């Protein structure tokens, strides 16, 4: 009887301890991870990227022996990695170093300078791909972790923590960015911004570091990343719909104040879809297929729904009248 009780007691004790000794998907069932858990979960999907600088006839950053480095995120088990365009654009030979320190030659598959994203590939399978989060559930104030290669390649897979300071931010950018206060440095570029569920919600880009104010870093939101990846996979590049106008937002919009003034067309490119559709200078674009556009960011985010060849109905204000114009987008020349 005594032995039976002992065994049962041990069993019960172990059963109670189980939630504290398990990790991974089981812990997700019981809520968010600790920071340590997040780093442990995501770090295997984070890679260091190092490469020889292309030179043409000029040495780039000769103080670093012509080596450039950054960070990337494994997005598929068969070796596809997302990073910033500016990390790999100037690399002649790209090498990816996994979290287990094994290094592989990589090749550039696709790159987009405007979104500052690039897709590279290593010939290695069975890799731990990162899990993407949902932008819809990202909230200001939530804790996030950035993992990357801050200042030196020997510091790769370093982790820093902060909070989301803002969403819908823009810094010399025509696209929405996530603002946070995680400490990042040059080599963090291309690395993940991760929520406390261990999900990637952004790709860090130090392209915007020039603004140099402490406690402000910017990441490309995960929905934008997913949009770009889907275009890379289907088309090998981002297929932007082209309207063929130069436009500007109102002063209120520039200051981030509420407005419904729309975007003013300053110039219509001859032969462009805008000209063919009859859009004119001084027209104000108010909506695209029923979606209000009052800032350049609004317009660019809206354009993600379209491809060259698609048609959209523009609601415009011309000389005080609201008219609707159907436009067929073409490819950016």
């Amino acid at each position, binding site marked *: 009887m005594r*032995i*039976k009780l002992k*065994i*049962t007691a*041990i*069993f019960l004790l*172990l*059963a109670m301890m*189980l939630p504290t*000794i*398990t990790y*991974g998907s*089981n812990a997700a069932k019981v809520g968010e991870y600790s920071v340590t858990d997040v780093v442990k979960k995501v770090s295997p999907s984070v890679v260091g990227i*190092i*490469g*020889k600088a*292309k*030179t*043409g*006839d*000029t*040495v780039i*950053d000769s103080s670093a022996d012509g*080596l450039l480095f950054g960070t990337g995120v494994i997005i598929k*088990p*068969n*070796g596809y990695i997302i990073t910033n*365009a500016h990390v790999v*654009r100037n690399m002649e*030979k790209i*090498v990816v170093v996994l979290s287990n320190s*094994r*290094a*592989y*030659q990589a090749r550039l598959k696709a*790159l*987009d*300078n*405007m*979104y500052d994203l690039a897709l590279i*590939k290593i*010939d*290695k*399978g*069975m*890799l731990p791909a990162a899990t993407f989060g949902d932008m819809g559930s990202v909230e200001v104030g939530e804790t996030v972790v950035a993992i990357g290669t801050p200042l030196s390649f020997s510091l790769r897979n370093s982790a820093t923590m902060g909070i989301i300071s803002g969403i819908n931010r823009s810094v010399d950018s*025509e696209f929405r960015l996530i603002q946070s206060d995680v400490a990042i440095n040059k080599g963090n570029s291309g690395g993940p911004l991760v929520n406390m569920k261990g999900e990637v919600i952004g790709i860090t880009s130090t392209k915007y570091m020039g603004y140099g104010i402490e406690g402000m870093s910017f990441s490309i939101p995960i929905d934008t990343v997913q949009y770009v990846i889907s275009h890379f996979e289907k*088309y*090998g*590049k*981002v297929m*932007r719909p082209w309207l063929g106008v130069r436009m500007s937002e109102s002063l209120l919009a520039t200051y981030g104040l509420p407005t419904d003034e729309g975007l003013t067309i300053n110039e219509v*490119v*001859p*032969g*462009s879809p805008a000209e063919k559709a009859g859009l004119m200078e001084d027209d104000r674009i108010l909506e695209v297929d029923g979606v209000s556009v009052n800032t350049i960011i609004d317009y660019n985010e809206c354009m993600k729904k379209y491809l060259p060849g698609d048609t959209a109905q523009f609601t415009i204000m011309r000389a005080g009248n609201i008219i609707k114009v159907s436009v067929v987008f*073409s*490819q*950016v*020349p």
Partner: protein
Amino acid sequence: MKPLKYKSLVVFVLIVAVLTAYLPAAAAGSDDILSIELTVGSEIMKANGAVIRVEKPHVSGNTVYLPLDPILECFGAEIVYTSKGTVEIIYREDLIELIPGSSEYYLNLKKKQLVSAVRQGLKGLMVPLELITENFDVRTEYNPANGKIQIIMEDDGALTDLSFLTDSITKPAVGNSYFNWRVNVPSSSRIIDISFNSRYVCILNSYRGIAIEIEVLPADGKTLEEYYNSVIEDPESYLYSEPSEALLRQDVVPAYAEFQYTNPDYEAVLERAFVKDNYIYILRLTYYIETDPETITENSYLMGIINSFSLDYTGNDRTVQNLSTVEYGLVKFENYFVLDATTGYTLWEISVLPEWDVVEQSFNYIFLGTGRKEYISIYVLEGPSETDVAAYGRHMLSNYEKYMNPGLYKLISAEEGSLAGYKSYNIMYRLTVGDSEYIYDDRFVFANGLMYNLTVKAPAESYEEKSAVIDNLLETFRIGDLSGTDFKDYFEFYNSMFGSRRLASSDRIVPYQDRNYKWSLRLPGYWMSYASFLNNVKAFSSPYAHIEVAVEAVPALKSIENEDIEKQFTILSIFLDNFENVKTVDKIVKEKDENVRLLVYRIEDEEEQLFGELKCRIVTGNEYSYCFMTLVSDSSNTSATTEEVENIWASFTVSGR
């Protein structure tokens, strides 16, 4: 006692079961070893213990068929189902192209054969086990008794030597597995230059004061002895110096020609040339801390390096660092535009055959090929005002039809197409140049606000057999992404200084004036003007025809009747020195109410592929004398072009007389 023991055992087993249920699945091997297990007739595949559902392997005749996609996913290979119905596999340095239903396939563009055909399965391709065994660095085992198939990959391609990132050489030798050479190098050597096709390599060892260069050149049918004789007859062209010693050693293997000399920088050089498989291999050791080449021949260490050179290296030697840049049977050329010390952009890239080289290159164009008879040329020009490439292409075509010599030019096709993922307009035509016919395949693409004009030229007689290779090369053409950058503005700035641009946005006749040298003329706005490093020279050409106009001004000559008048004009004398020509006219004529020295040359240069007429008119003003040159190639010799160049000449005016 028995019942108690049984119960405690059950409880113990339960405890262990509960504990192990939370342990992560143990891998079958370590990170670098991949073990895949399949069974004939079963949809279960295990990869390092992880279970994956796949299409069932089966046996047909003696062939075991496996599902391709899930296996290659585990390898990390890239699979592309192409629009032409083939399946491409990219893995490390190899490109495999499979044709569903065929037992033929291509490995790095070379045809190979399987015992059985590749089949289309329900979820993807089913391939013979032989394909996996032959083309991937794996061990495979099949047990017919139980239908089990095992695939073991022990080397996952992880890099063990990253010294290439710093260009340092960590192995005792370097080699080129494509061109089959290898040579020993001293430790602490560094690669300081390597061409895109790895046909030229330069290695420096500053500790020993030596540079080792290896160059692979086309032999064009020359034997070693013929090469040796060529060097002896014209050493300046080959060595830039007179050799102090020259040897032809045909009694050794491999046979070589050796030249010892002091180069123009007063450095000691020993150079050996070898000929094999229609290539000339040059091995050049420069001992730059010495002047006398005998210091090399008397140095047993340096001679050991020279004598270590061999032509039997095919790769797979751990003591040799392979410098070949050949991937999938091709080499990549990237047009990387450097803007400043920290910024550069890729304008375009293309993969070509390793035997190809840069034939000609300038700021905004490059010719890659075997020479002027077979090449791909890529021009990047400022974007035209049109935004529709098809309209632009049709406009170009109408001008080809107008300006090309109908006796030599024949249109083959003109149609809309695509190139590098962009809409293109393609014009293919046959052109007779000299005594031979060539096929030209012109492609126009608008991208990044710029115009890309890619032209393939190849001899007509062999075009059909080469067309598959040419198509492969064109498919590798990629245009760099410049979105969100100010690159177009930079390009236009640099183009105005170093490249060429339209004279005007409209096609109408426009004036052009050179105030410094006091002349002017009028040309159609669509003509291109070229930036020149010589302030006294201006050059123009038509984009629709092979016609060019150039004006060179020199301080006023005392007389235009000088016997050596050609040497007074730099551009004219350089042109005549570099192109085969025969003077057919040399006389003074009266044109536009003045005396003009008229010189006409018939140009027939097979190597440079230039056949036509160069006409020079020399006139004198108050301060300057001018050579007005027009070059009309035979292919553009029509009444329309004749009228156009004569009109330009008629408009040429010297001011201040």
